[in-house]
């Protein structure tokens, strides 16, 4: 599948991509302090003495953050390191009160793992090099005062997982699929809310280009790209830029860059020459992190069914692979679908209904599936009414619309509004007889070979039955009356 090539003046180029994804760990408290982590709080209201790096303050690891990172590692089948260690990454900046970030350079919590992606119907495995946990920095605000910058330390010390992929991706689509899949897994596991627009997940995009078959080229790192679409754009724009530089006789400089979505370009931030010497060394305030088997067992037991397994299970139930992918992409849809199955709905019909009817309606209403006005139980009941023949698909649509409006159960709606489909052959035959009488000319045409008119008679009969006749029964009886 990795036959994505960019045509340059000197021939075809291959793109090599690796992603470093920073994912904010879902936890009520920060990595090394008890301060809260709610998004959008007033500036500097979620800052403990530790986060502000007051003299004499000490970090204490938050077990929940470690647990979430371990669970994430397990979810991508990664090596979990029972012994890991925190290191200090030293540099001065106004958003970094301690003057160092506590991270894990030498001995990360999670080692090699892998993530499966689907691109254009093909499956590819992307290697994950490592996951380590580290502190986030604060946020500088330059727009509050004409000559001063302000700093908000609410985010300072919040736990991040840095998930480092191998340079295994070869196209913007693969990079996009990897990020989307990773996000999906994190959301299933519950270790990150995946809200990229709030900065809970952001990616550093490493891109290099080469002629197919040649060794890796020099890479650049575009920092803090915060959506799947932007990651794909960054890859494409940066690859094109690099090819342009090389083909015009230039050299790619190893540097960090910024993506500007408005201008559709990447810009140099700083080159390797003025890169910091971070003077990493083990944090002497913290003992090495040692995990015991009980802790790891608890982490493993707490893992939910993950997207790939869920998708396979849906397919086994007869759901099309496409629908299964759609349903499992977001944990909330999968949750709804599982609830639907638990309430007795049949896989294929239910999957069609969710992906077309429900998604269509939610889209129209601008609602998320977790806020669906129709519960999974109600939906299962509706699908049951269709399956047993009480409702035709047409009637089911009507009932669904009423359910969306009123929130009432389908059986109640059917009962009170008389929307039941009828298979009463007597009533249907009576109507058919009337339709045929009233359209004797068309009956003659039909019988002389104009088969297409059959649909006309079905329509007339259904209309006479106010849409409540079972279409199968109508078909059978009409055939009998016309052909018989």
């Amino acid at each position, binding site marked *: 599948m990795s036959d994505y090539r960019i045509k340059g003046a000197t021939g075809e180029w291959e793109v090599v991509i690796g992603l470093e994804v920073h994912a904010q760990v879902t936890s009520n408290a920060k990595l090394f302090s008890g301060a809260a982590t709610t998004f959008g709080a007033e500036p500097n209201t979620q800052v403990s*003495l530790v986060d*502000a*790096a*007051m*003299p*004499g*303050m*000490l*970090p*204490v*690891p938050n077990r929940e953050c470690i647990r979430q990172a371990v669970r994430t590692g397990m979810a991508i089948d990664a090596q979990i390191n029972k012994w890991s260690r925190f290191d*200090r990454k*030293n540099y*001065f*900046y*106004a958003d970094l*009160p*301690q*003057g*160092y970030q506590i991270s894990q350079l030498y001995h990360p919590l999670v080692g090699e793992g892998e993530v499966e992606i689907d691109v254009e119907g093909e499956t590819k495995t992307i290697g994950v090099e490592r996951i380590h946990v580290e502190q986030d920095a604060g946020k500088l605000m330059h727009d509050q005062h004409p000559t001063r910058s302000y*700093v908000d330390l609410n985010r300072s010390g919040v736990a991040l997982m840095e998930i480092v992929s191998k340079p295994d991706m070869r196209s913007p689509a693969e990079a996009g699929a990897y990020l989307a899949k990773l996000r999906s897994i994190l959301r299933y596991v519950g270790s990150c809310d995946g809200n990229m627009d709030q900065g809970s997940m952001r990616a550093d995009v490493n891109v290099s280009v080469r002629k197919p078959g040649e060794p890796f080229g020099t890479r650049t790192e575009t920092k803090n790209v915060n959506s799947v679409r932007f990651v794909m754009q960054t890859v494409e724009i940066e690859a094109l830029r690099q090819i342009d530089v090389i083909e015009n006789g230039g050299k790619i400089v190893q540097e960090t860059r910024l993506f500007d979505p408005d201008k559709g370009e990447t810009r140099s931030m700083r080159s390797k020459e003025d890169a910091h*010497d971070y*003077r*990493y*060394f083990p944090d*002497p*305030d*913290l*003992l090495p992190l040692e995990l015991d088997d009980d802790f790891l067992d608890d982490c493993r037991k707490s893992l939910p069914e993950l997207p790939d397994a869920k998708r396979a299970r849906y397919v086994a139930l007869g759901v099309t692979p496409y629908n299964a992918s759609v349903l499992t992409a977001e944990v909330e849809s999968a949750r709804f679908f599982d609830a639907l199955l638990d309430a007795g709905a049949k896989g294929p019909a239910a999957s069609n209904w969710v992906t077309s009817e429900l998604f269509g309606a939610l889209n129209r209403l601008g609602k998320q599936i977790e806020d669906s006005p129709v519960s999974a139980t109600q939906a299962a009941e509706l699908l049951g009414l269709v399956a047993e023949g009480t409702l035709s698909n047409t009637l089911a649509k009507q009932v669904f619309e009423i359910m969306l409006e009123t929130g009432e159960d389908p059986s109640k709606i059917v009962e009170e509004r008389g929307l039941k489909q009828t298979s009463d052959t007597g009533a249907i035959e009576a109507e058919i007889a009337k339709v045929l009488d009233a359209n004797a000319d068309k009956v003659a045409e039909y019988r002389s070979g104009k088969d297409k008119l059959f649909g006309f008679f079905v329509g007339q009969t259904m209309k006479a039955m106010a849409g409540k006749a079972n279409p199968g029964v109508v078909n059978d009886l009409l055939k009998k009356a016309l052909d018989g």
Partner: protein
Amino acid sequence: MSDVTNLGVAALRDGIRSGEFSAKEVADAFIVKVSAAKQLNAFIVETPEHALAAAREADAARAAGEVLKPLAGVPIGMKDLFCTKGVQTTAASHMLEGFKPVYESTVSQKLWDAGAGMLGKLNLDQFAMGSSNETSYFGNVISPWRRRDGGNAPLAPGGSSGGSSAAISARLVPAATGTDTGGSIRQPAAFTGISGIKPTYGRCSRWGVVAFASSLDQAGPMARDVRDCAIMLEAMAGFDAKDATSLKLDVPKWEQGLSGDLRGKKIGIPKEYRVDGMPSEIEALWQQGIDWLKDAGAEIVEVSLPHTQYALPAYYIIAPAEASSNLARYDGVRYGQRELPDGANLQDMYAATRAAGFGPEVQRRILIGTYVLSAGFYDAYYTQAQKVRTLIARDFERAWLDCDLLLTPTAPSAAFALGEKSADPLAMYLNDVFTVPSSLAGIPAMSVPGGLDKAGLPLGLQIIGKPLDEQGVLNAGLAIEQRAGFTARPEQWW
């Protein structure tokens, strides 16, 4: 009533309990002493109201017939490295001048919870970096001791806990807190004829103590005798969930366990501590110490700590490395000093603030630490030093196969004159040669006074123990104390 300021912690505690004198009388007496000793410059801030409040509480509790707290009404000195709520905490640096924490360090809080009061914040070497108290931004402390041979040069009280040692030996406080990173409790104790113990790393919480070198910093008490050290340490020690390196262990009843009977104990004499150029008086005192411990029933064995000579260089890599990072937070942004030259950008502000806020010794150690952690030098220095540290710890573990405790001199010299070594950092660093190995190994060690040199200056003996065996260390200290009969005190000239 005799002068209560001649009494130690145990005597003050017992006297207040029995009603021999009131806590108020005690506080008043010490407050007078403190305010009359400005020449020593032992205090950066005096807090008589704090001591009086604790005294009022103790007297009220006694009047109400309540059981008194372990240190009820005992006023002490607090090294100005411990953050004290609402009271200026400077680490003796211009960088933190005027800084009043909104929090109380765990150790100081434990002391207040035990009923102690605070007479003031004690001077020290800036950020605890120094062995003579000469690096304080607030001026050096002058030792109350003077040479008997006519030399009237002001002497160093040792460092970094020089305010603590001077105040105790001058009877301005009965006891004080210290912190020890490479000898900062033991060496000043030795220089001033008092006792001080650095417990096992992790016994006392580091929370709220301005950090110098996190893997080495350990708080401990300084007092006039071993019993007072035991009482103080009991109040200061204990698990603290806010310090990830704190030991989750109960605090032993050290005072109750005190015994100078060393029968059955083996004392190791490490041959590598016989360094070149050590004054013969120190050699002689060491031998005297051996004899005292024998007399107390101990068996003496010679042991080897083969990597001792590498301890000092390893220490002067590890400690500055950690310090260079620990002190990065003093950037002028959130608290303390800020220097903002005209037109300065952020980097300029950092540079100006740190240049003005940190003294020369602190700057030197930040530079050393930054250097040894730099790309290309890290393995040659930091990694190598950590390996040495492991070997030092292993030396001690092997020694414990042959003995229970070690006896060494505390420092290679008696107190030197102020200014004598301050121009030569290496000579100053060498003063830590006997105290640094046990700091690197994180094991308990104590200095007790052994006697006076020819010039009439105190000399200390150091006892080093196994991890968590503070009791063994204290008991050996007590055995020496009982035999040394050290009663010398500086003549008041201030």
